[in-house]
């Protein structure tokens, strides 16, 4: 098992995540795609950690932090989506153009 295979896996996961963010209209699915991108980052962190044989295992620790942060992010993100849906009866991101002043 070389590091190349894990990097390719991470790249594939990241690309799928980007595609999902840009193409999905449902806000929940956009959030899922973001989670995919974060998972790709975690794969990369762990792979490079093993590859470089870091004594302190810093990559794995960063991966744990990322997981924790993404859990929090999803929590907030879902709450926002739920509120948007209640207000507007829709969770389609292409209908949400309120960021334009």
């Amino acid at each position: 098992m070389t590091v190349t295979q894990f990097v390719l896996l991470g790249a594939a996961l990241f690309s799928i995540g980007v595609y999902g963010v840009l193409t999905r209209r449902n806000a929940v699915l956009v959030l899922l795609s973001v989670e995919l991108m974060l998972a790709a980052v975690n794969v990369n962190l762990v792979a490079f950690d093993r590859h470089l044989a870091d004594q302190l295992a810093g990559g794995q620790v960063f991966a744990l932090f990322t997981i924790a942060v993404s859990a929090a992010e999803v929590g907030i993100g879902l709450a926002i989506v739920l509120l948007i849906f209640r207000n507007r009866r829709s969770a389609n991101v292409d209908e949400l153009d309120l960021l334009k002043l």
Partner: protein
Amino acid sequence: MIGLLAPGLVAPVLVVAEEAHAAELSSGGLLASAAWLIPVVPLVAAWVIALFGKRFPLKGWDVAIAVMGFEAAYGTVLLLSHIANPIGYEGTVEIARIGSLPIEWGWTVDGLSIMMYSIVGVVGFLVFLYARGYMEGDIRYTWFFASFTLFAGGMLVLVSAPNLLQLIVGWELVGVSSWLLIGHYWEEHENSSAAIKAFLVNRVGDIGLFIGAIIVSVSVGSFRFSDVLDGVESGAPTLARYAFWGGVALFIGAMGKSAQFPLHVWLPDAMAGPTPVSALMHAATMVTAGVYLVGRVYPLYLTEGFADDVRSFIIVVGALTLFLTGLIALVQNDIKKVLAYSTLSQLGYMTAAMGAGAYTAGLFHLFTHAFFKALLFLGAGSVIHAVHSNNLSDMGGLRKDMPWTFRTFVVGSLALAGILPLAGFFSKDEILASLRFAGSEESGFTAAQGGAGLANVVLVLAIAGAFVTAFYMARTVFLTFYGQYKGHGHPHESPKVMWVPLAVLGFFSIVAGWINIPGITSTFTDVVGARFHLVADHHAESFDYLAMVLGLAAAVGGIALGYRIWFPDRATQAERDTFTIPGLYPLLSAKYHIDTFYMDGIIRPIRGPVAGAVNWVNGHVIDFVVNGAGLAAMGLGRGVYVLDQEGVDGAINAAGAVTGAGGGVLRRMQSGRIEQYATWLIGGTVALVAGFIIFS
């Protein structure tokens, strides 16, 4: 900062008499060291009156009279303490320095300046008091007192000056306030012309003063009078070489201010000013500045080897002035002009005395003349105030209507004529005695200075002048106060604020002469003689009886002749009113054609070509320059216009267009759609990563 000069005792420059001068000069204590207030207070007050005078309850007069009261009190206290214990003090403050030559402001407190302080203070106070009544209702009442106070300040700057530069400052200050006050009624063209004439004629003399100050100061290396006189005393060779021309030039300055013969023409015209101005400036104080200047540098004129030769010039100028101008006074119809010519004549006496080496006599006449001439002018003003005319032909018979004016005017006239116990007698007698002394063998008036013969000729002229003086004053008194009233309306005595100063001045006109009676008192001689550079001169032990009898006879004769011609109401009054002196009248009424000569002989020939030349220069040179400048400015304007339109506006428009276009492009990015933002975000990240990969 303030240097106190140690009082130095100096051997008398010319010992011709036994009168002992003050042996020791005291520093005068606080009284002298605080004397800088004397010139400063009125100068400050002049600005206060000019700026805030109208807000005071009495429209600025109250400030002016307070200032003059201060001056009178300070002057009197100084004079009394000087008589008790002679003061010699010089305070100086250095203002600037040119190389090694310091420019100083200072104040002199010695016999000569104390005498002037007391005259300016006391006579000034009385004239200011009088002016309140005289100027009542004037349109520029406050302004009048502002200028008048400025004059007092300028005069005191002049007499307190310890150096030539400050003297010039004071000289010009009185010149400019004279100009302001002669032209007080400037609405009439004649008056403003008189002001300009006075200023310009004075300027001729001023050039002499400047040149003299430069010659004397440069050859001594200091502007201070004390250094100049030290130089005289020690026989400084550089000063001795140039002293003659320096002395001549300084005296020309004195001739301008003291209105001596060829430069006398401004003073009669100066009567266009209000009467209090004529009384204080053009009789009592300002016109004596020239005599004062000669007195201040007197050792220069007295010491052999310096400017002693100039004295023959001085005595001739004085003699011509005293005699010729006195005659003109005989034919004047304007009462103020009579007094103006009389003032010229008396100034001639003072100058002649100075020329004859009689320092004390000249200054003594200055002192007494200040009182009785101020009195006469104020009396004339009182009459003018009552009859609303300056002309003797509109007066007559006023003695019952205006008792106080009449009494004081007669006292003043007798004092001026030199009748025995009054002030003018003693001072004029002293001048006659000095002239006789100068003409005698034992005097220091040597052949080089004109010789005894010249002094005797001047003595004859002075006695004849005394006759003329008495004659024209008799005429003035008889035409004004006797006979029938010829004016309009009914004249009344002036208010108390006007006749009280007259009475006080009348008192002084009687007693002022008693302080220097030969053989009895020598107070005045001691007062003006007590200074750092002692000027000892002739003050006789007893009367010079011949001079006294001749002078008195001339005065009585003049009055008698005046009485004979103008007093009796014989035949008709009209005849005596229009009496003219046979033979002389045309020449005198034309004022010896001097004004005409100046106008036709000097002013017009110069003015015509100068005006032509100026016109040509104006038409050709100045217009060319102006037009050229205009054209150049126009061309430059065009260039700037183009640059502005094309360059600056272009740049600004371009900047605007770029910003607008940029805004148009960027506006499209801000759509509010999340996918688009995410696309930009990811595109940007990809571009950054690509950049890192390519360029790292």
